């Protein structure tokens, strides 16, 4: 620790720290421009200059990189210091008289005009971008080229850089907004879209997964994070005051020994893009149900204000009319035959929300096949919405178009369908359309199923052991399923099933032991020749060799009864109980006898 005087006050500081750092801890403000927490101080802008008196003479040093030492006297805002700083700012203002940032800086220093000739630049040559690119990103796609007054920030030979990794770090630190990564990079920057907001919002490589995440902690997208990809950057560490970021954390495989497993992997929302007739992806204001969910959510991209896209694609306009199309992809022989179960009720909810949030004059049209409002209070809710003035049209919408044929259709989306109750063809112009997409099995259900030994039903969802007797069980003992991975279901159903699955797991845990199936292998020691081939074939390492007796022995706790051993054992020493050779042959004889008796 060293002690020195800071603006007349005795202060203490760690050896090796800089004046700027110490001043910050003592709440002494020193202006900076080229300083950045994540970068080595360079002392280029000289704005942080302070006066240091060493007992003999006064010197002006840059506080960002001047290390403190005991006994020195530092003045951060002497008249001279302020005068010099003002001159620096005035010089910058002369260089960039039209730049908002520099104008703001000048205003802070009370400078209205500069006494020097005006230039038209918007780079203050603070070097932050260059240093960020070199020091933190390890790329040096840009650098300060030239010398003296010719110095500027450029890519080598002013050619668009293919070394640039389009990380945008340069842009993010540029105070004046001069840096545009598009001018630097050879490749087009790609925005990172938030999964949680179904692509309606951008996010950084480090982000909060979603508002109600537990634990509510930020995550880093390894595929986008420059540090993970290249070992560089790591700037976030400098900014996290809690010191919570550990970029050296490695992906690790954690082996957890458990007695049972509950699969609750959820569902995928069907992608409407291939269903060209609905124009998803073509018309900006055709939304999927999940997108609309985010649009109406208080933590969503619009903060819960229901807005649709303007001509620039920004969410700014409240809709005057909305069509909600039920059963898109479900109850459809071309896609999924099953009913997705939840759409009717959320569609009703959306109607209610639109009326409530956008205004009662907003028109809401539901195009439905049937409204399936089973369940407590559901039918009542339906009735209430009818009273709220929502239009229900029985008939599945056939097409969405922007081709107007009447003046009132101009600039609108037109839903083409049929009111089957009236037997009338309809064209309904609206501002926005919500597609109630089918819920479908996760795209990776096959792989997940393989890992856990769970089959998929014809619809792709995980297959329960038995629809009535084993709705939570799977073909694999100890593996249970809950929620939409088993089939479309709404929240109360998912919660019920999950509770059941949890109870099943707990029941196993409480018991502390499981009954092994009787269908397991047994090796007759009197017959076994000890060739040990079965040991190599056993997928569960359930067979051991008893060297003393020279025979292989089945560990009954490990054996699952697959019969890999029995399928090979030439002497028949290894047999699966209930499926032994004698039984199979008897079965075979029986079958053949019976066939010969009846002819087929």
């Amino acid at each position, binding site marked *: 620790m060293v002690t020195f005087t800071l603006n007349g006050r005795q202060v203490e500081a760690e050896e090796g720290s800089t004046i700027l750092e110490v001043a910050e801890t003592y709440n002494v403000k020193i202006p900076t421009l080229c300083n950045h927490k994540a970068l080595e101080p360079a002392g280029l802008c000289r704005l942080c200059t302070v006066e240091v008196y060493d007992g003999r003479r006064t010197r002006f040093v840059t506080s960002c990189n001047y290390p403190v030492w005991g006994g020195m006297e530092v003045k951060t805002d002497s008249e001279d210091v302020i005068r010099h700083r003002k001159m620096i700012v005035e010089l910058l203002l002369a260089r960039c008289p039209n730049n908002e940032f520099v104008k703001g800086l000048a205003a802070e220093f009370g400078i209205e005009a500069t006494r020097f000739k005006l230039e038209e630049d918007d780079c203050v040559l603070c070097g932050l971008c260059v240093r960020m690119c070199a020091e933190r990103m390890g790329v040096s796609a840009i650098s300060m080229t030239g010398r003296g*007054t010719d110095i500027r920030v450029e890519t080598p030979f002013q050619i668009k850089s293919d070394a640039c990794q389009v990380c945008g770090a340069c842009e993010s630190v540029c105070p004046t907004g001069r840096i545009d990564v598009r001018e630097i990079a050879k490749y087009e920057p790609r925005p990172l879209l938030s999964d949680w907001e179904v692509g309606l919002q951008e996010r950084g490589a480090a982000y909060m997964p979603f508002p109600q995440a537990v634990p509510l902690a930020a995550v880093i997208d390894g595929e986008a994070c420059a540090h993970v990809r290249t070992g560089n950057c790591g700037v976030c560490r400098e900014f996290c005051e809690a010191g919570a970021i550990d970029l050296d954390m490695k992906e690790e495989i954690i082996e957890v020994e458990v007695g049972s497993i509950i699969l609750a992997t959820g569902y995928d929302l069907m992608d409407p893009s291939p269903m060209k007739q609905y124009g998803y992806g073509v018309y900006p204001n055709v939304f999927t149900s999940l997108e609309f969910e985010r649009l109406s959510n208080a933590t969503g991209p619009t903060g819960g204000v229901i807005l649709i896209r303007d001509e620039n694609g920004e969410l700014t306009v409240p809709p005057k009319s909305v069509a909600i199309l039920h059963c898109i992809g479900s109850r459809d022989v071309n896609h999924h035959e099953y009913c997705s179960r939840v759409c009717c009720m959320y569609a009703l909810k959306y109607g209610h929300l639109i009326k409530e949030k956008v205004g009662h004059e907003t028109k809401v049209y539901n195009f439905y096949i049937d409204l399936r409002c089973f369940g407590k209070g559901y039918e009542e809710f339906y009735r209430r919405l009818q009273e709220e003035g929502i239009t229900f049209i029985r008939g599945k919408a056939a097409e969405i178009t922007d081709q107007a044929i009447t003046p009132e259709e101009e600039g609108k989306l037109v839903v083409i369908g049929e009111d089957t109750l009236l037997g009338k063809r309809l064209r309904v112009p609206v501002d926005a359309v919500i597609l109630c997409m089918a819920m479908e099995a996760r795209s990776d259900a096959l792989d997940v199923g393989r890992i856990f030994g769970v089959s998929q039903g014809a619809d792709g969802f995980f297959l329960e052991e038995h629809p009535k007797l084993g709705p939570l069980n799977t073909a694999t003992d100890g593996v249970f399923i809950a929620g939409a991975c088993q089939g479309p279901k709404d929240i109360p159903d998912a919660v019920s099933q999950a509770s059941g699955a949890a109870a099943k797991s707990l029941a196993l845990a409480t018991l502390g032991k499981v009954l092994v199936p009787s269908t397991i292998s047994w090796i007759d020691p009197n017959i076994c020749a000890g060739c040990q081939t079965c040991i190599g074939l056993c997928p569960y390492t359930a067979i051991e060799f008893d060297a003393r007796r020279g025979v292989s022995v089945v560990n009954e706790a490990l054996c699952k009864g697959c019969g890999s051993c029995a399928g090979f054992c030439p002497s028949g020493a290894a047999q699966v109980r209930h499926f032994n050779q004698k039984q199979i042959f008897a079965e075979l004889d029986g079958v053949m006898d019976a066939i010969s008796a009846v002819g087929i």
Partner: protein
Amino acid sequence: MSKLQSQKDYEDFRDQVKKERDPERLLVSICAGSGCGAYGTEEVREALEQEVSKNGLKQKVEVKVTGCHGFCEQGPIMVIHPQGIFYPKVKPADIPEIVAETIVKGEVIKGKLYKDPVSKKRIQKEEDIPFYKGQHRIVFGNNGMIDPAKIDDYIAVDGYSALVKVLFSMSPEEVISAIKESGLRGRGAGGFPTGIKWETCRKAHGDIRYVMCNADEGDPGAYMDRSLLEGNPQSVLEGMIIGAYAIGSHDGFIYVRNEYPLAVKNIGIAIKQAEEYGLLGKNILGSGFDFTVKISRGGGAFICGESTALMRSLEGQVGRPRAKYVHTVDKGYRDSPSTLNNVETWANVPVIINKGAEWYASLGTERSKGTKVFSLVGKVRNTGLVEVPMGASLRTIIFDIGGGIPKKRKFKAVQTGGPSGGCIPEDLLDLPVDYQRLAEVGSIMGSGGMIVMDQDTCMVDVARYFLDFLQEESCGQCVPCREGIKRLLEILTDICAGNGKEGDIELLEELAGTVSKLSLCALGGTAPNPVLSTIRYFRKEYEAHIYDKKCPSGVCKELFYYEIDEKKCNGCHVCFLRCPQEAISGEKKKPHTIDQEKCIKCSICYESCKVDAVAIK
């Protein structure tokens, strides 16, 4: 040549070399420094050798091509030993006569001797010439006796005896304390006490230490380091080895600008020869001390003479300075402790070791010891390299040694220390030149540049000129230096163009203050010196430019015109004939006049008028 492996090996060899040299033997030394070289040394040498062999004198006469003798104004210089006959401005055509008369007969050719412009007398010996007489040449003295490509020549003048002394009878601490006691200060620009620098570096934490020689001499008109490297590279090398021994370093670099091809070549030869002799490399002279030197060629950026920029350049990065709050002696090249000294500093080291710190400290002033080499250029008769003890007055240097201002012009100012030095006026001519005094009057020692200016020099234009140089040579990193110099230059350019306005001088002063105080490195720190010193001593000239829109020295073309004084003009018609624009009219023997419409102010008439009838208005 097998390696010298002990002190005795060295001494035996040195004695042998000396024995082989007959002090009475005829030796013709021709200067091949860059100055003389440009005047045609090579042709002179060829003619001489031809003539010598034609006369069958090859065995009798040794022709030696040496480094710079310093008196560049008079090149090519030839000195004939043992008599020490000094022939300036030798041309190939002179050779037959010189051989016939001086070499064969031993006769002096009076007409070819140096004629002192002040006393108008012919002078036979080098040491009697005023230019040399006033000097004290401890660093440069041997240049005339050494062929830079022959290490034996250096050893013959006791070269490397200092290294032997250090290696076999002194501890590194003793070497450092000798250097400290000698009072040697860095000759590059900073003037930092060399011994303290070495001591700090020796004590700094680190396994590897480096020593470096700064030969990036960038000041326009300065060439003492160049001449030393070209003429006596072994002395620099010996200094570096001694320094490395004292500091505990085993790796050295010489950072030399690539625009000095002869220096690069000669130091390269010197390194190779020293290695062959076992004076450099592994286990030097069997002492167990290892030291190797590599040459790094710089691209010629002025800023690369700055220590941190130089080291970055050495590391392969762009040569830009960093803040020196952590000193390079602690963390320099590759973050290891590094000692950087300039060529002249290194060359002083063997002298100090050989002659003793006390002797060295007896030269110079209280806080500036030893001698300093200046490159004396500009409006002065005897341009060349001048080595004088610290404390010699400007007057001694410029008038006694330099021979004063030619063409009867009046002395106006001298700028010391290169482009960022200050301009010192006539009334300070008796100022003893040392680090403190120069600083006190607003200039710097720099690396020893000295530009003399006469009455025809516009001081505003001078300041503008140097800032123009500095604007380009600034590294451009820090705001005050880059933006500040640019603006200083902008204002000066306006003033020179007649667009000066009230307040400009004050703005210059204010801005210069910020630039000098806030810049990151010494380039910015000293850059305003030309402006500030000229304002300080020649404020009136500024005012004349701004308020009267006049350039009293007749330099700033927008601000004066030439006029022929009818009373003085004798109608010699010379100006009429020489004017490229045919702007002068008048009959012979009658006063002439200048047509201002046609005049482009080229100054030819002004220069050529014998009766000073052309006046600046």
